[in-house]
């Protein structure tokens, strides 16, 4: 469970990114974070990944207390999370297999486990025919599918997706959403986006942010901009 309890984040230069935000996310829940640029969506995701520490309030991810100033279990925490970015972050000098294997090698998986898990993940994202292909030969949608495969392998329980459809055309974006749909009920998915069409069509929980404040937490799903 992820729990924000009156969490605020202020940067050293004084700008406030989050103001007294509280919410809870249960295991295997699918949650959209929506709001305009600078609303605090990415800050929430970065706080969960412990890229930032909260300035005040209590933030816990399962048994990890991320509010603790002496929190030293960053690596263990992050090994439970997969990340998908707007700009894919696929290594250009590694092929599809090697890009996904990065995630499993960090977890210390064996060669056999790596081969099996990648095969399974590539089936899920419909890229099993492109195992040895290099990123330069892939389309944007395919690159994002590789990124999703990299995020889900190794039984990572929480998938953090920061604007994963932001660089994709509408059709490709829908293809990507179908993959995320397949993962629901199996993983906790935290999905930051601007795309209201996607948010409204999936009818999942929506947390609306604006100016660092939580404006609305619609557990029934749907969002009006």
């Amino acid at each position: 469970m992820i729990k924000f309890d009156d969490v605020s984040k202020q940067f050293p230069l004084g700008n406030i990114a989050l103001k007294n935000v509280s919410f809870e996310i249960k295991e295997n829940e699918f949650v959209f974070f929506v709001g305009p640029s600078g609303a605090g969506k990415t800050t929430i995701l970065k706080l969960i990944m412990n890229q930032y520490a909260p300035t005040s309030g209590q933030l816990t991810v399962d048994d990890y207390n991320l509010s603790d100033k002496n929190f030293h279990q960053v690596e263990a925490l992050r090994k439970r999370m997969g990340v998908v970015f707007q700009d894919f972050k696929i290594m250009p000098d590694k092929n599809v297999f090697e890009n996904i294997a990065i995630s499993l090698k960090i977890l210390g998986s064996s060669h056999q486990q790596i081969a099996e898990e990648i095969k399974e993940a590539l089936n899920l994202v419909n890229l099993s025919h492109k195992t040895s292909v290099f990123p330069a030969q892939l389309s944007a949608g395919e690159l994002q599918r590789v990124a999703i495969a990299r995020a889900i392998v190794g039984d990572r329980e929480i998938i953090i997706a920061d604007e994963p459809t932001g660089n994709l055309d509408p059709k490709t974006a829908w293809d990507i959403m179908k993959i995320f749909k397949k993962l629901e009920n199996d993983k906790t998915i935290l999905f930051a986006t601007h795309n209201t069409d996607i948010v409204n069509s999936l009818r999942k929980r929506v947390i609306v942010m604006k100016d660092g404040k939580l404006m609305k937490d619609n557990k029934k799903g749907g969002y009006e901009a």
Partner: protein
Amino acid sequence: MREILTSVKRTPYQSLASFLILFFTLFLSLFFFNLTSFFNGILSFVETKPQVTVYFQTTTRESEIFKIRDEIQDSGKALSIKYVSKDEALKIYKDLNKNNPLLLEMVTADILPPSLEIFAKQPSYLTEIATYVKRQPGVDEVIFQKDIIDKVLTLTTVLRRTSIFILVFLLLVSFVVLMTTTAFKIALKKDEIELLRLLGASKFYVQKPFLYEGAIFGLVAGTLAFLIFNAFFLYFYPFLTSYLAGVPRLAFYGLSHLNLYVWPPTPSFVALSYVFVALFGILIGFLGNYLSTSKYISEQ
């Protein structure tokens, strides 16, 4: 290994700069290692020679020589005194010139002087002993080894200090070049490093490829330095052999029981110098990259 080759391909000039400075540092380290070992061997050799050698006139009787010997012995300042008679001197002379029959002709024990080889208990006694024997009747010549030892010692000390100074300077330059080029490589891999960290990689996991790269660079640079140094050595070996003809076998820091001889170099000494330069190279490469990656990755 593939990652290291990729890194070299990505940053060829930075990799070449790192490699060249490592090679240069290691080549000079190997040169100074051999040179200081050689002079240390010379020093050890000279120290094992009698510190004061007293040559008597050929007419001096043995009883007079023994009297002087006993007086020095009784003074308590001599560690040991060896008497070399005319016959023993002839034997030594024959041994030294066994390959040159011309020099052996007409030489008899009568024309060779008897001598005393005196080892002092402390270097400070040497002058006293030398002054004393010079005043004794029947003494022809006194060879005072302290001067030679002092000269070799001064030379060895100067050489050691100079080489330490040059090596420290080169090490600093190597570290700066390695840290700068590694920082550049890290900047090129910024996205990859960020991703690895977000996926739960430890700081050491991210550092590892850079540390391997540094160590392999050091090993390859050290091996190349060793091969080129020895190629030069083999080329000049005939010249050195004739130039150092009078120099006996010189042990490496007294380790003659391990067959470690600096001159003429034994295979075990050559192997030791390779181990030295390879390990030194690995250490510099590893440390340079460790310092650089520690600095950058802690800022992530």
